[in-house]
């Protein structure tokens, strides 16, 4: 299949799918729910703490709810990509498409760009929501926030690729959904617990806590390369430190991660075939 035909197929598939996403109500409902959760976290942590303390020094408090929102939105789109491929296989749509001018590369990239385009809409609403929040509370909307928003595109790229590779590797929709949710939850919980264990346990930590920390640190040496959340957190750390090279490194490594997973998805689709 020629490159121009493939690009055309990707464009048509992406356009069709994004139109369907934008015309449905699902994405908007999910976004509102995610933003409500973020607002609840924001109002009950930062605003309340500043009110209680009178004066506090913090990194921009919008950062935490922003991470929660973009993380949940990226996970939702990753789940959608996983569901979409599994559904296409279950319904036989995939087989029909592959009889036409669509091959594994065009199909996988079509799904990938569809979710990225959907994330463009998510990002627009995220910008409106957090800019609005920062204006009404006067917490400030800095360049770092914009940097984190941009970085979330790469998180979404990783999440979507992760969803695609799981659904390409499993024949049943339920299996791919369970695998995706299981992995994402594990990665999220691991990152949270790892950060808590390091932050909560001081120098004089009990030896049990030190051993827990050592185990988590060893696990982190592996998980940091396979978890999309870890790529995002590294990039976010670079944003807060104003480390441009670290930021670019995080973005590039996220893209390489996505490219590797998409390549594996194409290989799996070719190897396993497209039939139910």
């Amino acid at each position: 299949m020629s490159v121009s035909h493939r690009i055309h197929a990707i464009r048509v598939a992406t356009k069709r799918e994004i139109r369907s996403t934008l015309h449905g109500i699902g994405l908007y409902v999910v976004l509102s729910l995610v933003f409500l959760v973020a607002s609840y976290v924001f109002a009950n942590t930062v605003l309340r703490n500043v009110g209680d303390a009178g004066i506090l020094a913090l990194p921009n408090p919008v950062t935490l709810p922003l991470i929660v929102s973009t993380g949940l939105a990226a996970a939702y789109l990753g789940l959608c990509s996983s569901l979409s491929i599994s559904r296409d296989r279950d319904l036989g749509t995939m087989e029909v498409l592959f009889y036409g001018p669509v091959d594994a590369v065009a199909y996988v990239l079509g799904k990938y760009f569809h979710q990225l385009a959907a994330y463009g809409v998510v990002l627009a609403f995220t910008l409106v929501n957090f800019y609005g929040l920062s204006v009404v509370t006067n917490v400030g909307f800095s360049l770092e926030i914009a940097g984190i928003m941009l970085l979330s595109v790469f998180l979404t790229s990783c999440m979507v690729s992760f969803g695609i590779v799981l659904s390409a590797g499993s024949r049943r929709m339920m299996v791919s959904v369970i695998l995706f949710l299981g992995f994402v939850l594990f990665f999220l919980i691991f990152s949270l617990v790892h950060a808590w264990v390091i932050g909560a346990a001081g120098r004089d930590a009990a030896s049990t806590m030190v051993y827990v920390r050592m185990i988590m640190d060893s696990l982190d040496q592996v998980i940091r390369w396979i978890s999309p959340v870890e790529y995002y957190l590294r990039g976010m750390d670079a944003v807060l430190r104003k480390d441009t090279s670290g930021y670019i490194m995080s973005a590039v490594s996220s893209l390489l991660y996505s490219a590797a997973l998409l390549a594996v998805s194409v290989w799996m689709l070719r190897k396993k075939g497209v039939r139910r």
Partner: protein
Amino acid sequence: MGTARKLARLLSTVALIVALSPVAWAQETESGETALIDAVERVRELTRQAQEAAPDPSQAATQAPAETDGQGRPTLEEQVVYSISVSTGRQYEGTFAPRQMDTIYLLADEYAILNVQKTMVYFWPITGEYMADWFGMSEDVPGRLEILQDGEVIQTLERVPYTYYYPSGRTGEQRLYIGDEAIQVYEDYQARFNAYFDAVSAYFVEYQEWQRTMDRLLREVQETGVYKDPSEIPDPPERPSPPVDFAYNPRTAFAVKLPAGRYQLRLRGEDGGIVEGTTKTLEVFKARRSGIGYQVIPEHKWTRRFESNDPSDIFYLDGKRIFYVLPHYAEEYNQYQYVKMRYLHKPLEGEGTRNAWIWAQLAPVTGARLQVLHGGEVVQEVEMKPYYVRQRPGYALGYDIVEFDPKADPALQGRSPSFEAYRVELEGDRTYQLRFVDERGNVLAGSVREVRPIRAPGRLVYAIPLVPLVAGSIVFAWRRWSAGRSPASA
């Protein structure tokens, strides 16, 4: 460090008490100037002996404490170890690398004192650390220290004299001097020390003379019944003040200062061979970020200070606030390396923190001014001043923080300030910037902080998230409406 100070202070106190007894006795019995001078000389000698016997402060930190006596029988093992004294930015701290530790951690471009010594080592399971009996055995292993990088010897070091000097006393600032400078600093200190005792000798002689004059005047008044004119009564001699500074007796060790990188260390003995157990990896690391840390004392709860080291921090205020700022230099290090550098003799310290980062407080910022900016313009310039926390009298709770000025307020005479800081008073209605500038007006890097008053948004905080839902509903309704109007639908 604390143990060393306590020990040195104890020795000095005992020496002074023992030696001052004959001084008092000599005064009481008026046994003459010779006895007094002899007594002062004894004090001088005992104090000097106590000072010279004071252990190296870095080794005292890892010395087996007396409390461990009788708490089990640890297995002592004679080992060749690296005794290590490292700068934490505020002071030098001690640790050591027993045989079991393969890697030594040091700060880049800072002097560290390393020594290769034979001592008795044991593992103390109660606190989970290796301890050394430095007081019982501490023998320098002769030789030269070789530092290698990529298999090539890049430096060969001989032992040099070093000393720790405390310009404002043992609890204050600590400085490390190396080589001839160390000897010079110690000799200067000794000269001041001797001058003090010479002055003490002279004082006691003058005091005795004054006492004799007073006795004579008193006798005359008793015999004649005529009071003396006040101008005839001599002033007593002034007691000399001891030197406030302190310098340790110089010792010799290897002074290591390297740029960041990974090296190997080993001791080449006098016979030309490598001394067994001295080959170690040396990891020299530097700060990831540096800046000015703020220690903040809110006026409404002055005992609850908090820190802001990260330059990306923003100060959020709830209404008008008064707070006090104590600035210090701060650097961010890898937590694992920083903790291992300070506590290498504690194997579990810092484990599991290879990817964590920690801010270390260094020396306080001195001679700077705090500027408050609004809209890019300096609206306040604040100097550092001493403040006193005064409890309100009576049954009412509370306190006032007042500027410490004993001349203006006699109630403060004889008291010390509670703290010295920059006082900032900000209205909670606009955004400000805080920054420190030096004497020439240059902004200190990493000292800028934004200050924002926070607003309570009420229910609006939950209304904004509904924007996507409203937008989605409009799109959905429009789609249904346009589908209803399309020819296919008709």
